[in-house]
């Protein structure tokens, strides 16, 4: 059953230099209980997609298209209705655990806040539930009292608190936006494992946003590759990794510092993708990646390439996709 369906989502933002296009026709579907990785460079629009789903776009941004969630178009809902979705049905884990928590409120209060707000629990009931949630994310009392303040915890421990907050109302969808980027390596694996466990346990769908291909490979069943506000490749994670049909996807792999860690054989040379992301104020009419693509030809320039299906479920928006196996 489809839980979340984006149809031709376009987001523009007003800047002093005129409107800039941040998302240019993003569409995808995510079924209940499934996991989806969204990967791309910083600025490719993956966080903007998450904020659009949350209804928390910056004030200057305009969204068009449809975001269907549990059968309702979130873009058509008023603010009150959105508030009943946020935190209740869709929850989010942010990149920076150091700043995502309010420094002057106890972690117990912050976990309990959503419970009291959405479920109308009393103080005692909310506190009891917060205690259970903190325990579930690996912060058991009495060592981690709910009376602690965020500054008394490490980065990984704070991210656990953020996850507990997100789980509080048992939402149907968890969006994790670069949840481990700010953490040290050991905490990274623990946090990803925790997210995988709790989403499986509660039957939550997971949208995992990252710039790290290895994280997608290890944690998601399906994935999207985004570039400059467009989806350039999508499919089952194993399928996409086996083929890496879009030149950008291959560039991303070549440019990732530690390849895919132990699970994929590494040993390739670290590369950079030459050129620059196009100016969001003046996007070229044709393929958005053509300016940096070694395979680009004249046919790429007049209009954007339509997405073609390579095998069922694996699509790529490219006229000249790679058809050999992905380099390991």
């Amino acid at each position, binding site marked *: 059953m489809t839980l979340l369906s984006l149809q031709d989502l376009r987001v523009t933002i007003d800047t002093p230099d005129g409107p800039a296009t941040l998302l240019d026709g993003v569409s995808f579907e995510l079924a209940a209980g499934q996991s989806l990785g969204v990967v791309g460079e910083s600025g490719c629009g993956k966080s903007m997609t998450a904020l659009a789903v949350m209804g928390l776009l910056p004030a200057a941004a305009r969204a068009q298209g449809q975001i269907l969630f549990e059968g309702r178009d979130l873009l058509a809902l008023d603010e009150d209705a959105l*508030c009943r979705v946020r*935190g*209740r049905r869709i929850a989010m884990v942010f990149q920076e655990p150091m*700043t995502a928590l*309010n420094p002057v*409120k106890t972690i117990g209060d912050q976990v309990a806040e*959503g419970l009291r*707000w959405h479920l109308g629990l009393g103080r005692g009931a909310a506190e009891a539930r917060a205690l259970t949630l903190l325990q579930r994310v690996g912060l058991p009392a009495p060592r981690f009292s709910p009376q*602690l303040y965020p500054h008394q915890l490490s980065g990984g421990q704070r991210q656990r608190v953020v996850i507990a*907050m997100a789980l509080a109302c048992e939402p149907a969808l968890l969006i994790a936006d670069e949840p481990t980027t700010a953490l040290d390596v050991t905490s990274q694996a623990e946090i990803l494992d925790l997210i995988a466990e709790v989403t499986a346990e509660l039957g939550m769908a997971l949208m995992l946003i990252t710039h790290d291909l290895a994280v997608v490979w290890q944690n998601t069943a399906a994935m999207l590759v985004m570039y400059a506000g467009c989806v350039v490749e999508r499919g089952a994670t194993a399928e996409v990794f086996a083929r890496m049909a879009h030149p950008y996807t291959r560039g991303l792999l070549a440019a990732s510092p530690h390849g895919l860690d132990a699970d994929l054989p590494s040993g390739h040379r670290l590369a950079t993708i030459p050129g620059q992301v196009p100016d969001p104020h003046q996007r070229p009419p044709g393929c958005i990646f053509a300016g940096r693509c070694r395979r680009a030809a004249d046919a790429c320039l007049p209009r954007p390439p339509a997405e073609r299906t390579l095998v069922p479920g694996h699509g790529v928006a490219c006229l000249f996709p790679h058809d050999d196996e992905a380099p390991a």
Partner: protein
Amino acid sequence: MALFVLQRLAALVVTLLVASLVVFLVMEVLPGDPAAIMLGVNAREDTLAALRAEMGLDKPALERYLIWVGGLLTGDLGRSYTYGVTVWELVGERIGLSLPLALIAIVLSTALAIPLGVLAAAKRNKAADVGVMGFTQLGIAIPNFWFAMLLILLFAVYWRVLPAGGFAGWDAGFWPALQTLLLPAVALALPQAAILARVTRSSVLETLGEDYVRTARAKGLSRRAALWRHAVRNALIPVVTIMGLQFSFLLAGTIIIENVFYLPGLGRLIFQAIAQRDLIVVKDLVILLAASVVVVNFLVDLLYAVLDPRLRGARHGL
């Protein structure tokens, strides 16, 4: 926390010591013969001698300083030359006016400034924001004593609803006394409120951009709930510091405003003591007022630690 308090306490003591030393040097050593200043050029030699003896001017400066500081610490502030009563009695008499006046002014300015500042921040660049900012520009630019005169013109001269000055005294009952303090308190509060509203606005704007406000919104809190529960609560921490700093301006304002309204408070006392060259009273009042500024700021530092848990305890958990 204990270390923090001790540090602040040490700084407080040092500042007070230096302040008392400077006041003493300026008021007693620099002028040469304070008795001559107090009595003027036409004083008779025997009155001068009597005053010198009473002030202990025959003793060395260091001894006089120690006696003075000792007196301050034990509550013996000496005897006013012109009033003939102890300075302590004078202060006790008049603080009953000055303290309530200052408190009313603080309450008024806070009650006005914080909602206005939050409103302006929440409606950034909208009409309400522009209006509040315009009001604060005026509030800062208006001299408080002139504002006081305008209040008198309006409420006492034209409408005749409130007295133009004087103090009914608390013996006359709570309301009559409060009525006489109302216009002075408003005049004191306006410039404070203007500054405080600006500080509140910029502080709230800053916290509204913080990640934890976005987290609160992601939890499903409405814009208003996120504003009040997360942004405002955190924004008030620096605002409290500014309120502490404003206390010294409030004192300065009291000296002027008590004179505008002919209120027999500490501010007017210090002013009259100058006119009568009663150096004993001036010296004691200056150090008392300075001490109150230092002590208030010390208390604000402590309050800061109470409001911001990051300043309280050690790390935990790691």
